[in-house]
């Protein structure tokens, strides 16, 4: 198991601070714990930001490798999550900034829901596709704000640590993102 050596005698899951200390002490395998804890959320966030799972996987992988290499600069290991989301968020913004017109559009990207042979699953996949199209119509800033608040479940303080923006700015973006998303969803009904 990745990073098993970090578990304490009572098998309590180590805190992020303990894991970071272990990695910085030379236990590279302990970075597997970081990946296990945050990979799913980071992939979900990046996929929703970029609209395609392959680009998202690249952004998350690049971000995690960068995080490993610069782990010593994470000043507060207790806020490792915000730090990782910030790094991956920056990768996503770089990807978005250099996206060419030949890139796959959201309409071409396969839906994330795994299509099974059931009507309920197919309907759910279609609903998800509608929400994804609506989300894609938001500006990257509003999209990110909505995702961090309502999908990643962050507080405004955590969002400020991830984005570097002030809380009043983030609140305004989230409020506008909600309105814009409802507007877009209504058009797809």
């Amino acid at each position: 198991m990745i990073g098993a050596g970090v578990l304490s005698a009572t098998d309590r899951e180590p805190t992020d601070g303990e894991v970071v200390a272990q990695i910085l002490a030379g236990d590279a395998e302990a970075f597997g714990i970081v990946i296990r804890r945050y990979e799913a959320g980071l992939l979900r966030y990046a996929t929703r930001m970029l609209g395609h799972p392959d680009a998202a996987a690249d952004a998350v992988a690049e971000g995690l490798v960068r995080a490993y290499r610069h782990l010593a600069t994470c000043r507060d290991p207790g806020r490792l999550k915000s730090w990782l989301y910030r790094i991956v968020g920056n990768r996503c913004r770089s990807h978005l900034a250099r996206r060419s017109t030949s890139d796959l559009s959201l309409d071409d990207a396969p839906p994330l829901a795994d299509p099974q042979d059931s009507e309920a699953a197919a309907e759910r996949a279609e609903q998800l596709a509608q929400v994804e199209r609506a989300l894609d119509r938001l500006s990257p800033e509003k999209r990110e704000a909505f995702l961090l608040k309502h999908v990643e479940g962050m507080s405004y303080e955590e969002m400020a640590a991830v984005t570097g923006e002030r809380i009043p700015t983030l609140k305004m973006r989230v409020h506008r993102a909600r309105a814009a998303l409802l507007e877009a969803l209504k058009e797809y009904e």
Partner: protein
Amino acid sequence: MMHIDPQLQRVLDGELPSDDLTPLQREQSAALQRAARLLAEAPAGSVAARVMAEVRRPPLRLGQRVAQWLTERHAVTFAVRPIWSLALAAALAAIAVIPARGPGPVLGEQEGIAQFVGRFPGARSVEVVGSFTDWRPGAVVLRDDDHDGIWRATVVLPVGEHEYMFVVDGERWVSDPLAGRYVADGFGRENALLFVRPLAR
């Protein structure tokens, strides 16, 4: 734009209880929560193996890092690449990691070097067309000698600002994804922007 009542915004922010919402506000809240639940489905797949392979890779010696940098998709030119401030940068000028094959061109004071790198597996030809070719094709042809899908060319260019795109297989115009700096071309696409520095400093 759809209007959301400030009271509902505060409820959604967790600042107020949801007891006193109107039917419309409940409907809007439910729509947003439904959207969030759908978006919260985690995608399949994992990057763990890929990341741990990098983590486990033994640190490269300085010369190996330089060789890797030259062959991987990092840089377009020395003036614009995103990772030039690595610690090895200061030592790079003093190190020749690949034996020089010949004397090379003699550069004037107002000339510099641009290195174009692009990953186009399966392509039959890749070239650069831009302001420095007078937007004529055929002047800067990239090569993929080891057939690994990575095409390269190193070119002497005048110092200053240049715009360009890659042209793949003679017909597909592609913005350089590694350029880091772009400008709308006025035709619906983006040219990469390149700043060439004088080599003789």
